[in-house]
């Protein structure tokens, strides 16, 4: 079996112009990341610690534990510098680009967290940075756009298609095809051609490594279940990788959007649940599970959360689902918004809308998840506040703040 594949998934389906760069990246990944040549891994870990703020805590969630009558722990990736797990990968790849002698970085972003993390890593390491972002996502995630620009990155709006992550990835690949000789493409998730899915997983695996050690310290045992939201699947694979070999229940929580039904004629899937409802195909460099119509045209996906709004998923995750090792589940937009408010009120943590999907699943299915549960808090929700205000106004969600009514000043 080729090392570029995970079972039947993965591979390298990219234009020929990019193949030499991908071969160069494979060599660099082998040499620097897997063999720690020139002390790459040591420098990466040191920068993650000092610049990134690792290790992040594994917090015992008291209110949730009481609510569900079991021990719920939160892996606080929202406390990583930049507010999301994305920095683990962005810093790793930007540093690798530097070791490879490439001075220009390009990246795509959906919710803006990967773009922000990449812009921060580039500013930190002195690299030029350009980010591609769908126009619709730019409108949904303005604070992150501003943060990227504050860090000196250029943000290029993508207007094709629906202007979300799928189109941003295609546009970044087009830039890479033009600039491949001096530019590295920092893919933001465990997607794309080999070696990206493995390399991004390795950079994110620090989440599970820490969680494993921390849960042993705090609970004296491994967890029964680990929950993580899954768009492309980078925080998912990061949280799961250390537990794949054990019997721990691994739940990839996808965005069920407004419905799991698809409108084939319109080419629209009102969800982003590729693992739960997708079929096998080839997109953005890899064979994986996709939202596509009967002819193989890629569908427009939907999620209230920009970060999950993608028609594909990482090939390793697709493989682990086929093997029965990861359970794909999904929750809808309403459930995610309710969970967003619930976690904010119960635990004082405002989660990313992506992460809120994992908490919605916890609320629905906690009885089946065992006595010790870890939820990966993939990121913080400040970036989502504009969306949440708008989406909450359209729904009747218990206990949400009414911005017209104040009881202060007594």
């Amino acid at each position, binding site marked *: 079996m080729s090392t570029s594949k995970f079972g039947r998934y993965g591979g390298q389906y990219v*234009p020929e112009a990019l193949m030499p760069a991908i071969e160069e990246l494979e060599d660099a990944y082998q040499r620097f990341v897997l063999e720690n040549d020139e002390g790459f891994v040591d420098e990466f870990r040191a920068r993650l610690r000092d610049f990134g703020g690792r290790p992040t805590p594994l917090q015992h969630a008291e209110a949730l534990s009481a609510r569900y009558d079991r021990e719920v722990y939160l892996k606080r990736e929202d406390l990583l510098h930049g507010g999301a797990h994305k920095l683990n990968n962005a810093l790793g790849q930007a540093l690798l680009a530097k070791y490879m002698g490439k001075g220009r970085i390009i990246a795509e972003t959906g919710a803006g967290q990967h773009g922000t993390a990449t812009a921060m890593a580039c500013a930190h390491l002195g690299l030029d940075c350009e980010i591609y972002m769908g126009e619709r996502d730019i409108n949904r995630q303005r604070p992150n756009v501003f943060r990227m620009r504050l860090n000196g990155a250029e943000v290029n709006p993508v207007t094709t298609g629906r202007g979300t992550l799928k189109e941003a990835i295609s546009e970044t690949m087009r830039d890479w095809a033009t600039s*491949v000789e001096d530019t590295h493409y920092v893919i933001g998730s465990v997607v794309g051609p080999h070696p990206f899915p493995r390399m991004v997983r390795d950079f994110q695996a620090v989440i599970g490594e820490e969680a494993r050690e921390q849960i042993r310290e705090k609970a004296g045992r491994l967890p029964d279940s680990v929950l993580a939201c899954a768009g492309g699947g980078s925080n998912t694979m990061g949280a799961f990788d250390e537990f794949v070999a054990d019997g721990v229940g691994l739940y990839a929580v996808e965005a069920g959007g407004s419905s799991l039904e698809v409108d084939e004629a319109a080419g629209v899937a009102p969800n982003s649940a590729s693992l739960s409802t997708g079929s096998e195909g080839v*997109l953005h460099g890899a064979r994986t599970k996709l939202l596509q119509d009967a*002819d193989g*045209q890629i569908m427009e996906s939907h999620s209230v959360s920009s970060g999950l709004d993608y028609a594909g998923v990482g090939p390793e995750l697709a493989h682990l689902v086929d093997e029965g090792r990861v359970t794909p589940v999904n929750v809808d937009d309403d459930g995610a918004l309710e969970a967003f408010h619930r976690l904010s009120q119960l635990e004082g943590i405002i989660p990313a809308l992506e992460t809120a999907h994992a908490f919605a699943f916890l609320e629905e299915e906690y009885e089946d998840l065992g006595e010790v549960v870890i939820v990966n808090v993939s990121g913080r929700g400040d970036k989502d506040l504009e969306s949440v205000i708008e989406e909450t106004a359209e729904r009747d969600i218990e206990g949400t703040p009414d911005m017209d009514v104040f009881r202060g000043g007594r």
Partner: protein
Amino acid sequence: MSPSRIDEALAEGPAFIPYLAAGDSGVSGSEATGGSEDVPSSGVESTKEYVRALVRGGADIVELGLPFSEPIAEGSTIQNAIVRSLSGGMTPDVYFDLVEDLDVGVPIVCMTYYNLIYRYGDEEGPEPFVRRAAEVGIDGFVVPDLPAEEADPLREACDTYRLDLIFIVAPTTRGERLRRIMSQVSGYVYVQARLGTTGARADVSDQTDTSLGRLEEWDVPKAVGFGISEREHAERIVAGGADGIIVGSALVDIVAEGETDEGTVAERLERKARELKEGALAGAESRPQPERP
């Protein structure tokens, strides 16, 4: 093995190979079909008319794009054509019917992305797509997102049905990769004239000469594409050793523009084809002649 239709077309001198996105009539789907969702007739009929015009103008082989929703190797001109075609209702089956009806007397190369090939039919893999392509008279494939590493299943199906599989060689392709592609390619090798995506350009890249130089020893015909839009480009590239020129965006621009004072789309495509073909012929004439003994 006897030569394929593509081999024969290329044996007759420098080839002009135009590209069009099948189903693109230059207007968006709802305008083209009066809002109907299931009648892609306007785009299909236009494509047939346009292909015939290109053949009248001197096309030796036609690359006909089957649109995919995520065309990562294309620039904005062809991306927009693909959006127009898809919104007009283009599907693989409509495409195959279109080709079956064409009957233009020159080889047709299907240019598309691997997911459409992989997904077609009830069986897994590329075989059903290739079988159907052979039935309707397609002569070969160009698949921009399928490098030699992943091409074995499609190569095998193409061998079974005697279709050519054309690979792209990029300016970045060197050494072992060149040898790998040489062992897989048939019909012609598509020499990418410059890094980047498709799109008409005002000049010919120096990368073209370097790339052609790298392939000098190959006995497979070399057709150069990416950025060619003028007679002078065609002349220069053929004079530099190419066996053919591939032109897409400059023609798609004509389709997108629609009828002008200069004539109908078909008239203008025919004129442009003639201009480019003449450029290629002039390029062949200006090549240094081998010394007589």
